[in-house]
């Protein structure tokens, strides 16, 4: 930066081959219904946490699936486990278990600290 006044831009592409999909694989292994998400947003629409924080289960699902773990890692902590999303999900995703498993997975693979 000092020398040229600029740096080399980082790519914005999701690097599917390099991304870490262990979190996703851990979740679907233990809760296969995580695969059934169709990104309808029913979970996030009435999420108490999503009203005030960046937390969105729909977003978490797609990002973890792609191995884009940074946002989910932080946002996962916002879930209050109230159960509203489980009540709504039209695909029968066990969202409560997904949150628990995601936390476990981050602890296991990612030295996730709560």
């Amino acid at each position, binding site marked *: 930066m000092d020398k040229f006044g600029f740096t080399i831009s980082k790519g914005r592409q999701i690097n599917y081959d390099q991304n870490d999909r262990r979190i996703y694989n851990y979740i679907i292994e233990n809760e296969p219904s995580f695969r059934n998400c169709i990104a309808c947003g029913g979970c996030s629409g009435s999420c*108490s946490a999503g009203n*005030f924080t960046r937390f969105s289960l729909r977003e978490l699902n797609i990002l973890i699936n792609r191995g884009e773990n940074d946002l989910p890692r932080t946002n996962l902590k*916002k879930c*209050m486990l109230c159960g509203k999303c489980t009540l709504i999900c039209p695909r029968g995703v066990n969202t409560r278990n997904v949150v628990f498993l995601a*936390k476990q997975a981050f602890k296991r693979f990612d030295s996730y600290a709560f």
Partner: protein
Amino acid sequence: MKNEGKKAVWSEYQKEIADDKFFYVRSCIRQNFFPGSEVAFLRILKEVLGKDVYEHPCHTTCSGIGYHGDIVPFETAMTVVARQFALMTEAGYENYVPSCITSFGLYTEILDTWHHFPEVEKKIRKNLKEATGREFEAPKNLAHASDVIFKFRKEIAAKAKYKLINKNTGEPLRVVDHIGCHYAKMFPSKGVGGAEYPYVLAGMIEEWGGQVIDYPERRHCCGFGFRQYLVQANRGFSVACSKEKFESMQPFKPDMIITNCPGCPMFLDRWQYVINEIEGKQYGQNGEGIPVFTYEEVAGLVLGFDPWDLGLQMHQTDCEPVLDKIGIEYSPEDKYKLNSLNHSQPKHLVVNV
């Protein structure tokens, strides 16, 4: 709002609630938050209704608060709960009644887990046996303490000294019911009236003369969460949830809020003070807050218990406006008589003075 539509929904969520011989387990936090409530529950069941209620001195936390706060793994929670069941079995009881909503949710989740995965139950039985030498029977009937009061709401009404009616206008008090998330959102069929239009508190309000207020954010969480409140930096999110509810209920001019969860009355009560401090807002009428009650407190008031015996002096949003509307007799000078160190009234932390 069409009430007959709600009644149709309620009729689909009937739940079996035991009639007598209850094994009662207290909440971790309610005895600090609203210490009169559990005492009132026991007094109502034992003295007013003549029921057999047993409390075991060795009962501990169910660990649900740790489970939801990422500290306690599910297997540990299940084993702790298995021990509570063992205490019940040893005492000769079958009807398990937790005071806490999260406990109730966790017990329901555990029983459901065992139902679908019998091998897990087997493992927990082994864990418990190895760790404590205890064995257990799963409860025959699991009902939250508010279910039990709901079941006896008519008996309570029959013995009531007061009704939830404004004595000056003759109009029913306008009551907001707030249900703890873990009561029915996870297992709608386990809650009286289901998860979308729970009837457990609404039934009490109706039976005791009040009018139930249904406002847009009725289903919204109070914002307690677990880590959300416990971590100080996150409390802005927690208070915002409560605020969302207050803003939404305010146009309906509620006289009071009634709750069935340990956390909700605490936060709906205390956050009114915080919001008032930060933004100068009040959500009740005449520049007052909206008093927040537990269902045991309301049952106690209706039955004519002394407000200070019910612990209403522990509320930060003063309850007097509701007591006065109903016409409940109380002595203002006795309000802080329980405070043996300092008989004078605390100066700051009250909203309605």
